[in-house]
């Protein structure tokens, strides 16, 4: 079944109206030798058969509804209010498209305006766009934006920026003559890397050619950066400060980036009401100071009025965008992650000002409870001294991949082995603890680590 309503009789009537004898005539512009090629696909399935197949595939995965997990590193497991799923399952939202016709798209437009307002409140910035693909691509776009604003071509990365985000920036920029300094190599080159960007090191790298300094907060290792000093370094040289937030729940308790001098804030919004989804769809956030709004990539919704003075919402400042400006656009982005932005809006609205604060405090408390106990286990140790939010790095007595295998054997999804990205941290694991981890789960993790480590 192809979800095709027309019958053979319908088709015959339509072909007669068109004035052709068969549908084949409609494809005659295709070179004859290439028409109707064989396609190697499995035979079609009925609805119950396809659902059975998908269920079987899904059961070959160990999911977080059955197994407690302690992975973060850019994708976070939080409680999601039931309301979120119900709202984003309303097909008036999910089966519409980009709101090109505002009179019949006020639902989507107003929720985007609300989303933009929420992102501004969380970050302290003046304006936010309607969303980007994910945190990493949002960062790449922000870096390009900063180079365009400053007319400079050097980017300085803090060592604690998510390694995949750094890779994405490196992938996006080769055609644009942008030089990238700092980053992951600062982790490897420093003896006793302290988990944060040393402002003296930043001072050495940032110069008058620097368009932007990129700092992730909290950083990939979970640590809080010396953001005020880093902001000063950037601004002394006329560079913009880009703050990257991969865990927006932290903004429930941490000072908003605007307070310490961020010029552009980007990040990953998944933690706000979006499921883990094996890494996507996620939600790229991008917000900035008002003076940069016309250099922003992506869709932006604005409030206006109709001829009777009624408030309504439209896509605005479109002169930045590809469908108007073509090769002179600020970005090529078109389709973004609107439904994920809606999920984030419903999430934040459900929790409200007290609920978001409470989630953040729960994450902070539970992560510190876990870190204290894991750090005290024989053979294990916390690597960094800096304050942290919900993630922390642990030195392990055995190879982290092996440790994860042992944990999985005990029904626990472990942490992130940092050796994947850093030679100097090949014996270290990044753990994440959120409000969704119960004390029972944390205690089970600690007990399992003690048992596994004790055998060494």
């Amino acid at each position, binding site marked *: 079944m*192809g979800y095709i309503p*027309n019958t053979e009789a319908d088709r015959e009537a339509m072909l007669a109206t068109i004035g*052709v004898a068969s549908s084949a005539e409609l494809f005659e512009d295709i070179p004859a030798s290439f028409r109707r090629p064989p396609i190697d696909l499995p035979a079609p399935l009925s609805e119950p058969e396809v659902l059975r197949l998908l269920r079987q595939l899904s059961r070959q995965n160990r999911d977080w509804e059955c197994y407690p997990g302690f992975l973060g590193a850019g994708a976070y497991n939080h409680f999601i209010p039931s309301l979120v799923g119900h709202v984003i399952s309303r097909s008036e939202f999910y089966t519409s498209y980009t709101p090109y016709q505002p009179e019949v798209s006020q639902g989507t437009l107003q929720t985007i305006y609300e989303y933009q307002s929420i992102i501004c409140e969380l970050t302290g910035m003046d304006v936010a766009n309607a969303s980007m693909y994910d945190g990493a691509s949002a960062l790449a776009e922000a870096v390009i934006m900063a180079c365009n604003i400053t007319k400079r071509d050097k980017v300085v990365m803090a060592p604690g920026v998510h390694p995949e985000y750094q890779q994405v920036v490196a992938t996006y920029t080769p055609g644009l003559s942008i030089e990238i300094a700092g980053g992951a190599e600062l982790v490897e080159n420093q003896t006793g890397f302290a988990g944060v960007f040393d402002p003296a090191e930043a001072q050495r790298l940032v110069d008058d050619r620097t368009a932007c300094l990129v700092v992730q907060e909290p950083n990939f290792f979970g640590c809080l950066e010396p953001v005020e000093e880093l902001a000063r370094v950037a601004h002394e040289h006329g560079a913009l400060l880009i703050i990257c937030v991969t865990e927006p729940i932290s903004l429930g308790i941490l000072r908003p980036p605007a307070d310490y001098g961020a010029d552009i804030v980007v990040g990953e919004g998944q933690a706000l009401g979006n499921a883990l989804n094996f890494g996507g769809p996620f939600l790229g956030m991008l917000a900035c100071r008002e003076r940069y709004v016309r250099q922003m990539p992506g869709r932006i919704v604005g409030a206006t009025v109709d001829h009777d003075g009624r408030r309504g919402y*439209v896509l605005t400042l479109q002169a930045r965008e590809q469908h108007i400006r073509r090769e002179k656009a600020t970005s090529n982005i078109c389709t973004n992650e609107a439904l994920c932005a809606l999920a984030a809006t419903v999430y934040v609205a459900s929790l409200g000002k007290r609920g978001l*604060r409470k989630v953040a405090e729960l994450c902070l408390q539970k992560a510190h409870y876990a870190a204290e106990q894991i750090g005290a286990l024989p053979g294990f140790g916390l690597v960094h001294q800096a304050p942290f939010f919900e993630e922390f790095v642990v030195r392990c007595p055995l190879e982290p991949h092996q440790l994860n295998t042992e944990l999985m054997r005990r029904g626990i999804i472990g942490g992130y082995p940092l050796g994947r990205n850093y030679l100097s941290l090949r014996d270290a694991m990044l753990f994440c603890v959120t409000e969704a981890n119960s004390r029972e789960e944390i205690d089970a993790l600690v007990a399992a680590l003690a048992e596994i480590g004790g055998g060494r």
Partner: protein
Amino acid sequence: MPEPLLFEIGAPGREGYSLPEPDVPTRDLDEMLPPARQRQELNLPEVAQIDLVRHFTRLSQQNFSVDTSFYPLGSCTMKYNPKVNEDAARLAGFRAIHPYQPAETVQGALRLMYELQNYLASISGMAGITLQPAAGAHGELTGMLMVRAYHAARGHQRRLVLVPDSAHGTNPATAAMCGYEVATLRSNGRGGVDLDELRRLMTDEVAALMLTIPNTLGLFDENICEVASIVHSRGGLLYCDGANMNALLGQVRFADLGCDVLHFNLHKTFSTPHGGGGPGAGPVGVSQPLLPFLPVPVVGYRPEAAEGEKYFLDWDRPQSIGRVRAFYGNFGVMVRAYTYIRTLGAEGLRAVSENAVINANYLLALLKEYYDLPYQRRCMHEAVLSAKRQKAHGVRALDIAKRLIDYGLHPPTIYFPLIVEEALMIEPTETESKQTLDYFARAMIEIAEQAERNPEVVLAAPHHTPVGRLDEVAAARRPNLRWRPESKKS
């Protein structure tokens, strides 16, 4: 009555959700977080759950959507989104898995991705597929970065990319993001590539021609093989924008036409919902010579490996362009597309394109007496008409679009492609019945008559929406892009 903003409803102390109390011994906050790092103020809404439910439900009712109305938005393929796909994507084993779990704990997810790569390769004939890009334009960027890497590896970086004047705006914008200059290629009198112009522009400095097939006029270029051969003869690559693939499923393989790089839009061709503007997914297929440049990781399969290790993420690709986003792509969208392909099979996909093309030509046949047809040809999956005739009466494409809303119909794409004056780009898709198309055609014909006899009713449309035509000039001149608390309003 306009719906108030979230920030305008609710009251201090209201909550829409309940959270557990801490079950671990708690510490003083200041011990964990220096007070200087803690936030003092958070101006978020405080709304009761029932009021949230009503707020979002009422807002949803202000949207047209595929599930409520015929949505013939040209170039966007607003086909029906099967419900079983949604159920599949929401299975806990897909929804609640972390991208960094060990491969042996996500074999089902990796297998689904591996098979989807193969299905897309089979449909298009391309040699290799990446599922990483999050949308069509993201796929374009990925594809053109591979074009760039290909030329760099051959020792001569080229300067130019050719883009037809009928192309989507994303094509030139993508080329520019990859550091290329864009040269515009004129279309010929039949809406296709002007071969003489192509021969003139196609030099050793041209990295690629970006071509949409069928093109944005809804036409299949009869000279496609000649076009490909001219591009290849000067060492260039043929980039194909697959936004309109719904016309060609099972009818022709892009690889056979000489395509080197191709992006798919899973949210158009493969029935995944558009989400009010995403998430989509924009996988990219490449020909053999471009395989080494695919983004990392790709999903691999080794039948000889032990159970739990057969499907794996292949990072060992030294010439890869890198990665275009974190993790592996919009997996939830892939699950839906996979479900769709398994439901339809090869013959089902062929029926999709056949019916999509019949539906578009049927509308074309019904409407061509009443609206100008810029190119006297049959179309593929979409029909591009012009409101030139109506413009003479002061009624423009925009007015016709707004008047369709009064009939409960979503307007077609308007003013695109740019080379057609007062363009109306109508894509019915295969999932609409003859009755729906007849109703749409009757509405279009009535509007054409109204344009002549009673233009005021068209010019004042829409008449029954929550808001009338909005002042877009004011919106851009004095941008109001967020709610602000009373105290901070400027």
